[in-house]
């Protein structure tokens, strides 16, 4: 059985950062926490088989990047979420899984798995990073994100049961009230639903993601970064040597060379500096980058998937 250990953590974290496509939140801070958790509680098992009636809980740490770099994570917040879930469903969860593999949240279940004594199921809801709760394989398969369970750093909880159109708004408002940061569990599934409602194999796949990219450019310098904040999103474009231009909104969305499209979301665009994936917030004039493209999970290549993915474009 596969495990996440201190020794393979770095490879996994790099894979998560690449799948973040420039967004998805800070990986490095989350990596520090997982290292601490692994030291304290030992390696975490990654499982790929469950019984049909088992409860699987996708988790994430929701918050503005500003906040997650200042206010550290507490175990208490996730313990409160899991307790609330047990009460709601009348049974203990069988496994955790990342709600979103791309970015810092690919690591989130591994921060808490050891303490809770739960394994991590080899799947996530998206197969990359996307900015809204709706943009998941689970939603494409007809599942509802509700009930959504939230908790603040002190373990105070909120349960949201609402229509699909209100979920995003209610979750954001609750998160702001919780200090712009909270633990979240959503799209809680039974074992019988998991094949349909998740991107299977994305956790084990992240360990080797970095080998699967197509290189679109090596050692190219950033000539300009044009960005602004619009509607709470960091929007803009970055111009590189060789007539390359990348448009972003938190994540990299579209890359062109001399006007010709080289790649676009839902495929995963990644800029790396000295082998380290660089987020859209970190782009600066003069940085020397490698540009790589990774193929999106097949669920995003269906007509429905492409349409949902286009909501960010």
């Amino acid at each position, binding site marked *: 059985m596969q495990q996440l250990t201190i020794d393979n953590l770095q490879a996994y974290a790099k894979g998560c950062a690449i799948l973040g496509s420039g967004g998805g939140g800070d990986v490095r801070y989350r990596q520090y*926490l997982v290292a*601490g958790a692994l030291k304290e509680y030992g390696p975490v098992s990654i499982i790929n088989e469950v019984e049909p009636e088992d409860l699987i809980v996708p988790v994430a740490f929701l918050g503005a990047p*500003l906040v997650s770099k*200042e206010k*550290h*994570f507490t175990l208490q917040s996730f313990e409160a979420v899991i307790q609330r879930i047990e009460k709601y469903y009348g049974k203990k969860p069988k496994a955790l899984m990342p709600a979103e593999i791309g970015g810092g949240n690919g690591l989130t279940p591994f921060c808490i798995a050891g303490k809770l004594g739960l394994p991590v199921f080899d799947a996530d809801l998206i197969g990359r990073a996307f900015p809204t709760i709706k943009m998941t394989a689970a939603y494409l398969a007809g599942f509802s994100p509700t009930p959504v369970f939230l908790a603040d750093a002190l373990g105070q909880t909120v349960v949201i049961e609402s229509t699909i159109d209100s979920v995003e708004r209610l979750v954001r408002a609750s998160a702001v009230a919780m*200090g712009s940061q909270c633990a979240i569990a959503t799209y809680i599934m039974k074992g019988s639903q998991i094949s349909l409602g998740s991107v299977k194999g994305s956790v084990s796949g992240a360990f080797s993601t970095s080998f699967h990219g197509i290189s679109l450019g090596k050692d190219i310098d950033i000539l300009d970064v044009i960005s602004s*904040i619009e509607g709470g999103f960091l929007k803009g474009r970055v111009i590189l040597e060789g007539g390359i231009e990348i448009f972003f909104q938190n994540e990299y969305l579209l890359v062109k060379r001399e006007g010709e499209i080289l790649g676009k979301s839902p495929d995963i665009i990644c800029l790396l500096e000295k082998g380290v994936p660089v987020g859209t917030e970190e782009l600066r004039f003069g940085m020397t980058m490698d540009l790589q493209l990774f193929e999106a999970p097949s669920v995003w290549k269906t007509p429905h998937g492409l349409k949902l993915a286009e909501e960010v474009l």
Partner: protein
Amino acid sequence: MIIGIDVGGTFTDAVLVDDTGAIVSFRKKPTSADIETSVKALIDELMHPMVTSIHIGTTHALNALLQRKGLASVGLIRLAGHRPDFVPQLCNIDVRIETIGGGFECDGRPITPFSEREAKEAIERLIAGGAQRLAVVGTFSSLYPEQELAIAALSPLPVTLSHQLGGFGIIERENAAVINAALQPLFERGFSSLKYKNTPLFLSQNNGGLLPLERALEMPVLTLSAGPVNSFMGASRIAKCEDAIIVDIGGTSSDIGYIEKGYVKRSFRLSEVAGIPLNLPMPDLFSLAVGGGSFIDQGGIGPESAGSALFREAAAFGGERLTLTDAAIALGYVTIPMANPKRVSLSHNEAKRFIQRAAEKILSKIRGHKPLFFVGGGALLFPEFLWNNRGEVLPEASVANAYGAALAEKGITIDKIIPLSEQDALEEEVLHKAIQEGADPRKVRVVQCDVSPLAYDSMKRARIIITAMG
């Protein structure tokens, strides 16, 4: 006139510079273990009635950190009422930690109430445990510093407050505060006795400007990268070129840096110093383990170096090992008193291959097409034809650091998160503070300003790093 001094790990260089910026004279001495003996001797040799200030650049803080030597035991107080789990302390030095209530949410509410009694008890426990200096870091203290300030008022020991070092991200800000506290006693031992009669003394800092000695004793972390910064600035001034690439070839390594509009280009990725993640404004620097003392053999060049033992260990000086300097001596590229080319057991072709390969290694790491200049003692080993006709070895190569220190201006960098609408007010503040730190009110101006908007922030705030000098 100004005396500029560079205190390196091996040698201390000093230059006397007149008001036109010309070097009047220069001196070199081995760095004494206590630093002050060699610095004082050099000041005495160069002192002139017209000297108005003394500027010192040093890698003392950096060397101490790299070797984890001479550092104080630090007591760290974390203000974090939510009691976070698995918070790493990444400095790898002697740190005791107490987490107490308090800290702030991003909207300014305390996470839990701050208690003076709890803070006092934490301070007492840290001191009882052997802490010699204190550091304090609070959740969102760069926006809301009041709890950190309250702790400073309670402590009998000198305290470093993380918000005063700016830097966003609590782990990096904590690290900056911890290593600053750890370096304070070392700086006091090395520099506090240097107060030189009536001549004001300044230390160079990471932003290329100068700090008054008393401030540098409080904030040694601001001097961490003064060595390369001075050499990049000095080289650009010697070359009279405001947009340049500078390569400083030393004994152990070569540092590559970039000058833009007369100032050192900064790095915006997380900087790591001595393995410690920091988020202070630092020069964009690429360090390569190739220098004059690098050992050479079938395996290639370096990374091991003879360092300060070059004149003992290198074959040309009667030693047992071959270094890059030996190869240059064998080829006749450089002549050094006491060195004998016949002792170097390299054929002409072998020697040439090593020097060429070293030059290629350095060239391969240089980005862009600006004019290229070489400084540092190791630069003299390379004839200009090896640089593909694009580099120039500067004549005052070995004193570029001290010269850079001499020509530096007084200045200050403020690193803050504020609403974008308050940017103008911050400009006023930085100019005012620069004058307080000794900048000339007639010359003071903003020389660098970087604005990074925060994503998902309803208050439209940005991290602004702004530097004024004069």
